[in-house]
């Protein structure tokens, strides 16, 4: 087993953990956190594919031994994920300010 495979499995586990959090966490802030975990798992899968595809570049003596295309996509994704998190946090803070709640569930808990 190589390091890439190991991190690929790690990314898959992170997606599972993040998804569980997005569904099960009661508070919106914890869901935003879980959403970020889920996202980083997906990015990690991209990174593993980039590393696997980079052998050719390293063989050509170009230095970096990763496929730069998925890596560039991940950088783009990280910036957009930050912007999305910032909007979500701003919405949540406003919700807490207006209603005193930290969740979108309105009614009583369903049995």
């Amino acid at each position, binding site marked *: 087993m190589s390091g890439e495979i190991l*991190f690929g499995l790690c990314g898959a586990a992170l997606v599972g953990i993040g998804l569980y*959090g997005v569904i099960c966490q009661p508070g919106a*802030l914890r869901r935003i956190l879980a959403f970020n975990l889920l996202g980083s798992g997906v990015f990690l899968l991209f990174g*593993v594919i980039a*590393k696997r595809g980079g052998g050719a570049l390293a063989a050509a003596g170009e230095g970096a031994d990763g496929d730069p*295309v998925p890596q560039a996509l991940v950088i*783009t994704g990280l910036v957009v994920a*930050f912007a999305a998190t910032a909007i979500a946090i701003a919405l949540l803070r406003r919700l807490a300010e207006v209603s005193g709640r930290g969740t979108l569930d309105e009614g009583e808990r369903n049995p």
Partner: protein
Amino acid sequence: MTSALLVDGVLALLVIGLALFVTAARTAYGAVVGFVAYGLLLALVWVRLAAVDVALTEAALGTGLTGVLLLGAAARLFPTEAAEASRRPGPGLRILIGSLCAAIALGLGAVVLLLPDPAPTLAPLVAENLPPTGVGNPVTGVLMAHRAIDTLLETVVLLPALIGVWSLASEQSWHGRPGSLPRLVGNGPLTLLAQVLPPLGILVGVHLVWVGADDPGGKFQGAAVLAAMGVLVLVAGLREPPRVTSRSLRLLLVLGPLVFMGIGVAGIPLAGALLAYPEGYAKSLILVIEAALTLSVALVLGLLLGGPPETGDREPGLRS
């Protein structure tokens, strides 16, 4: 080889352990602290995956700035937390959801194990087409030349995000200043840090942008460091955040995307395609775009942390 694998294994286990901690932590504040540690370890994973550009972005943006954002929200939302605990789904439902999520993770894991060999790659194509752009860092080459349209859209999409945050202002705060960051005026050590660190931080940020053409680094990493310095100065209370109605501020925010678009459109008559660079000028044009974008992106990132404008005006003359 085996020792490298050992390090990778320990790193992967630590990352998964911290992800579980973030999910299971009792308080949101604890979960955010766990998330910051998680992000820093993830940056190490990116180094192990030979993606130093991504590692820098993850550490500066995905962990540093996101951490500030989340810590502020966790502190503010603390009073609402107690009411949430009772809203968790019951144990039966949690086990069901957990097993379905585990099935998805197992499916993805199987995909990882069954990836085609040899791996499909665009790396040779990038290496072949890198010399005409004049930059030596393949990731920068992809971001600024081969997939420039993605980068353009990404820098433009930051502006609607900022507009979205600003539009959450209450009605009487339209002319205010961003108010989500705490202001700890008169905190001696913090004030000293905010005076000593920014000159060095600005140097590091500019350096990251400058070397980004040939070595790991680039505008997003540099901009994140610059934004962090700005936030430090604001939190220490040494400067007021700018008014969101300030015309010069708004001009600086759109400067980067405008320069990028201008050069991109000029590429149609000069180089035959949108976002194409005329031969021989690619490197210098890329540097111009990167410089303008760094300024705009740093401002947007800092202002996203600043949150919507609030009254609390210190200049009573402008209050309507």
